[in-house]
């Protein structure tokens, strides 16, 4: 964003809080939302960090402290062991549904 915008805000006597919430954030709102969406996409597709630690149980957990699984971790865990065509096809369908 142009520095003049921010500086004119300070020149009018605004505090940092007012400049950030009333000038900077509205100016970059579109890009900020885009950045959040990119981050969401990365978190949704993250595979190994989750696979290591989530436990990969084949149940719907009833507690946040129970082990579970995510789409990405299920694919990563089972793809090498999928022997029947139906098993790998199901994993591919699972992956397509997450995109």
């Amino acid at each position: 964003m142009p520095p003049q915008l921010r500086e004119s805000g300070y020149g009018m006597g605004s505090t940092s809080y007012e400049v950030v919430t009333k000038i900077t954030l509205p100016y970059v709102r579109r890009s900020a939302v885009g950045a959040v969406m990119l981050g969401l996409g990365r978190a949704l597709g993250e595979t190994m960090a989750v696979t290591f630690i989530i436990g990969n149980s084949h149940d719907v957990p009833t507690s946040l402290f129970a082990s579970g699984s995510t789409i990405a971790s299920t694919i990563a865990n089972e793809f090498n062991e999928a022997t029947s065509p139906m098993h790998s096809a199901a994993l591919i369908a699972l992956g397509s549904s997450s995109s």
Partner: protein
Amino acid sequence: MASLRRVRRTITDGAFTTFCWLATGVALFALGLILWSLVTQGIGGLNLDVFTRPTEPSGSPGGLLNAIVGSIITCALAMIMAVIVGVLAGTWLAEYGGESLYAKIIRFLNDILLSAPSVLVGLFVYNILVAHVIGHFSAISGSVALALIAVPIITRTTEDVLKLQPTALRESGWRSAPLTGPRSARFSGVPPAAAS
């Protein structure tokens, strides 16, 4: 009263600034903690064998040579493919595509690819290369998958950086008549952008 309003604004600003400092502190603290535990716990396991011997079956001594070599080969191949496609596509988007419908579609699809989960890219490459074209697992399939992940990022960054170039710099290439089209991009756009 004006002074009451001023006190409120000062307090709000102070709270906001403190919160920003705290949030940055939490992120930096996590980063520092990771680096610190990596170094303190990892330094003891580091010796020459790690870099010179392949991984042996569990229990017997060995190293990580195979993984290191595999990473180098796969990443090098992926970068060759991704840099060629990504830099050319990004240059086209910034210098030629402009706001045409085709460029808008390409830009939109590139943004979608940018956030595609890596697991999906893996499934896609598996189905095309591993299952059908090549028929077995290979380094080339791995590097194609890595290239597919890298291309959208390179395209987007190249385009953004080229667009940051001052218009005057680009136009000075157009003004001296022979530098049209690709030569203009080559002389005025890409060299300053390469540093970024």
